[in-house]
């Protein structure tokens, strides 16, 4: 259940996570995460808000250092590498952030061009690729605008365009379609699928949309209480009679996940007094 199905056992996984633990100021956020993801596969992580999904994603690209446990990218222990090697490994990644995280000192064009220019592509190619990426997310006429002039949904889409611009081997999406209209949500899903199929990209996505999760995931994992409570291919995941999964899929207020919240709230209160 915990290991993602491997087509060929000999092939090393693109990303492998071993017993990941992380706490912030005494609060345990990740409490022993294990998974491995072969090249060209897509993992979707779902779960209640505030359970450390973004923190997990940031561990994969080395933005956060684990308290214990390891992250392997292409079978190399990320935190055993030198600073220079880590920067090089990060170039394999593309990541889109929850709020876009666009550079607000630059316009939209320069934002999307940033990873391309940093990898030294010639200007003509940069221009072509930026136009291409912006048309993928259906934002052809905003090149000259500043991020502050865009709506939240538009910023998110520009962030998505920036993440895919340099055609990375691994893509991490932190809620790529939250706050987007249903049509745009589907367009983003289609782009993710297409990249996976055409370019053999390895993808980890965080989302709240079960429909998107079903569509783009080879596996879906439910993260709650710092652990993967359940992990399975989409059909199996959606049909599972695991009570936590059922509660999340059906969107019920009562169930094991809520008990978890209440327990945490109770400890927070008792610690505070």
């Amino acid at each position: 259940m915990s290991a993602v199905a491997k087509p060929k056992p000999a092939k090393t996984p693109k990303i492998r996570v071993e017993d990941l633990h992380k706490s912030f100021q005494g609060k345990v956020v990740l409490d022993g995460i294990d998974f491995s993801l072969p090249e060209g596969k897509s993992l979707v992580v779902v779960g209640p808000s505030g359970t450390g999904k973004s923190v997990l994603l940031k561990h994969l690209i080395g933005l956060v250092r684990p308290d214990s446990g390891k992250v392997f990218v292409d079978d190399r222990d990320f935190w055993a590498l030198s600073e220079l090697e880590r920067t090089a490994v990060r170039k394999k990644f593309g990541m889109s952030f929850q709020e876009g995280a666009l550079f607000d000192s630059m316009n939209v064009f320069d934002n999307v061009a940033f990873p391309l220019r940093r990898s030294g592509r010639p200007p003509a190619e940069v221009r072509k690729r930026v136009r291409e990426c912006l048309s993928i997310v259906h934002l052809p006429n905003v090149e000259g605008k500043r991020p502050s002039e865009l709506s939240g949904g538009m910023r998110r889409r520009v962030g998505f365009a920036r993440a895919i611009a340099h055609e990375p081997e691994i893509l991490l999406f932190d809620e790529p379609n939250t706050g987007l209209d249903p049509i745009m949500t589907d367009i983003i899903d289609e782009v993710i699928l297409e990249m996976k199929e055409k370019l053999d990209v390895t993808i980890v996505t965080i989302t709240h949309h079960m429909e998107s999760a079903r569509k783009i995931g080879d596996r879906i994992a439910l993260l709650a209480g710092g652990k993967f409570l359940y992990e399975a291919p989409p059909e199996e995941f959606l049909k599972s009679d695991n009570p936590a999964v059922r509660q999340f899929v059906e969107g019920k207020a009562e169930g094991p996940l809520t008990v978890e919240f209440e327990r945490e709230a109770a400890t927070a209160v008792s610690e505070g007094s």
Partner: protein
Amino acid sequence: MRFLEAIGRALLRLLEELGRFFQMLWQAASWLVRPPYDVPEHFRQMVRVGVDSIPVVFLTTLFTGMVLALQTFNGFKRFHAESLVGSVVALSLTRELAPVLTALMVTGRVGSAMAAELGTMRVTEQIDALTALGTEPVQYLVVPRVAASVLMMPLLVILGDFVGMYGGYLVAVQLLGANPITYIENSFQFLEISDVTSGIVKAAVFGLIFSLLACVRGYYTEGGAEGVGRATTRAVVSGSLSVLFADFFLTKLLF
């Protein structure tokens, strides 16, 4: 016990700050020499630190030179030493006032902006985004700002030396009726080249200290808009204080 606890906590925080400062210094130094070299960004920062500070430095040193001439003239008149006004103005400006006042003004003007900018980038995940795009944020953000400050501060101080001495000349000659030729002669009578260079060395060190402190404050900002405000205030306060501390010890040790 509360009192001891408070002292302990303050001490720990000071040590943590010092640790961050020297860690950032080391990181900035090591990323300075590694490619890629972002020349346009270096120039942009040099303009922001140097060229854009010219008006502030001009006015600060002009009025300092003027008031210095006025004050020393009034004081020295009591023992008939008016002829030394030019020397006092020249020595105090080049050795002390031009570097320190320039550093304080630039800390307020540029240091605050650096802390606010980096702090905002931190709390809106832009620094994470830089890292995620395979760009080392210390190299991209901190190195150009610190390098620009170390390079531009001495140039600003040289400008300040001239402007301040001219301010002193204006007051002495136009207002107090000193003889222009003898005033200029007096100005340079005791001035040695080491007076000027010591001020320039100080300026470079001040530039390093305030810019690195501001970058550290901004880089480690926590807690949203309020955190950015706090980082900015502390960048200016600790930057200015550190400039004054460093000034004393540099003067004592080196010159």
